[in-house]
């Protein structure tokens, strides 16, 4: 296997931490949102669903452009972060995390929502008549039954964050160690006509994606065929 340069490794590490942190935040924020969407009969549900799904249809550059405006010095989010003493988000790692969470939201919320919707109401009612309160029911019945959805959501959220490019370029630019993630580094190699280096990164990402998806499908096989589980 051709060796990675120190700069390549830096990009790999940066990408891995960005994707891990984003996935954790996505699960923390996406799980209650998905639960709410799966159980609510509220009139605002279609609007919330549409907002969540927006990144699926918008070109990443559109999303990145508006996030840049929002988080910029004159944007409302930018003014807030500066007032709180957090500084500006664009062209920082923190800004990338915020953008990734928004960009990858549908990839986490939708599988979770589908998994929660598939849980029969009677299972939750049975838990209630067995003295489990609402939180208890959620953690001991809903989450375990939504396990395949939770796994899919984590993997898709992680992989999609690894693969983002347009939003990163808009929000983060290309600062080594801060915002130069794999996809941007790859683009840099190609622009500089360093095709060997580009092959290392691109081939690595193909292998990584394949590995992740195969593990996902293996882990998410129906319980019956896996025996116990």
């Amino acid at each position, binding site marked *: 296997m051709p060796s990675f340069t120190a700069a390549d490794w830096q990009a790999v590490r940066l990408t891995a931490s960005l994707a891990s942190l984003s996935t954790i935040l996505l699960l923390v924020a996406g799980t209650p949102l998905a639960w709410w969407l799966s159980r609510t009969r509220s009139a605002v549900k279609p609007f919330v669903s549409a907002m969540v799904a927006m990144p699926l249809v918008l070109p990443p550059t559109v999303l990145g452009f508006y996030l840049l405006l929002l988080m910029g010095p004159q944007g409302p989010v930018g003014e807030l972060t500066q007032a709180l003493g957090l500084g500006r988000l664009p062209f920082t790692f923190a800004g990338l995390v915020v953008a990734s969470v928004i960009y990858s939201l549908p990839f986490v919320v939708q599988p979770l929502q589908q998994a929660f919707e598939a849980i029969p109401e*009677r*299972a939750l009612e049975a838990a*209630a*008549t067995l003295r489990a309160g609402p939180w208890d029911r959620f953690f001991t019945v809903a989450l375990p039954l939504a396990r395949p959805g939770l796994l899919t959501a984590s993997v898709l959220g992680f992989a999609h964050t690894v693969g983002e490019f347009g939003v990163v370029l808009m929000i983060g630019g290309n600062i080594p160690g801060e915002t130069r993630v794999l996809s941007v580094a790859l683009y840099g190699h190609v622009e500089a006509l360093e095709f060997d280096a580009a092959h290392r990164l691109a081939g690595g990402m193909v292998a990584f994606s394949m590995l992740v998806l195969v593990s996902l499908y293996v882990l998410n096989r129906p*319980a019956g065929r896996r025996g116990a589980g």
Partner: protein
Amino acid sequence: MISAALALSRPGFALDVSLALPGRGVSVLFGPSGCGKTTVLRALAGLERARGHVRLGEEAWQDDARGVFLPPHRRPLGYVIQEAALFPHLTVRGNLEYGLKRIAPEARRVGLDQPVELLGIGHLMDRRPDTLSGGERQRVAIARALATSPRLLLMDEPLAALDAARKAELLPYLDRLHAELSMPVVYVSHAIDEVTRLAHHLVLMSDGRVVAAGGLADLMARLDLPTAREEGAGVVLEACVAERDSRWQLARLAVGAEAPGESTPVSSDFHLWARDHGLPVGSRVRVRVLARDVSLARLPQAGTSIGNQLQGTVEEIAGDEHESLALVRVRVGASPVVARLTRRSAHALGLAPGMPVWVLVKTVALMP
């Protein structure tokens, strides 16, 4: 004593019932699909929000006047539905322990061993729900509910999803439930067979209302209720085994006998011969006499295969579901027997209330 007044309205359906159910034995809510019996059960459990009140003894689970509404997980009840609803991610043991774990140790009166033994599921403990048969799943669901030491057991058609063989397999377990645990049961059913087998108290429902409520024997003897129109209509009588005829494998049942003691009861309304199911003399049994198995005659019959001939008095005659049929209630001693005849036969016999008549009972179903 369970008392409840429940009202709710939905498009196309209104429920307005008031119930006073005995604090022991099995109370069956009986009625056609859509009559609201499941909604009543769900409202008793707190799974459905109806207006009114629900009280178990002195304890108010719901009292709108005082703003009391306990959520389901704060009501000490067990709830079993048609589909069992076992947790697929837990083993049988995990399912049983799910409820038990949530009961404070000092409040555990039942535990795990008794329900496991009672429902015969000891050999299934490490199995997953998806590897169980329908009947086994339902037994686990009942044991799981019992393990929470409920003070009231609610059952919503627990046999409806099972075929006849599985039903027959589960029924004896249900019999043992009220025999061994002194726990009031409210049982929803639309099957008259289950009613006559299990009920002590019966609530007949129709269109979101209570049509009649009372002891099983009293209601089954009434001709003005929907139960009398059922194919399986007929009286249910309490009896005890008075004698066993080993030569013909028959048992003589003393119907309406008060004392169930060891000796043959002193007073009883009449005797019926039935197949001997091996129950010892003195055993208390429930006897079901279907209206279609009863014939009437003006004189005692000779040269007939019917072994049970009783002398009684016609009490009431009513029309049946079909124009051609009539239902006749005859009082034999203090016990009622209902016969289903053609109206032509009733006319030919000149039946009228007060008239003495001979009751010929062809078959008797015995329920231990």
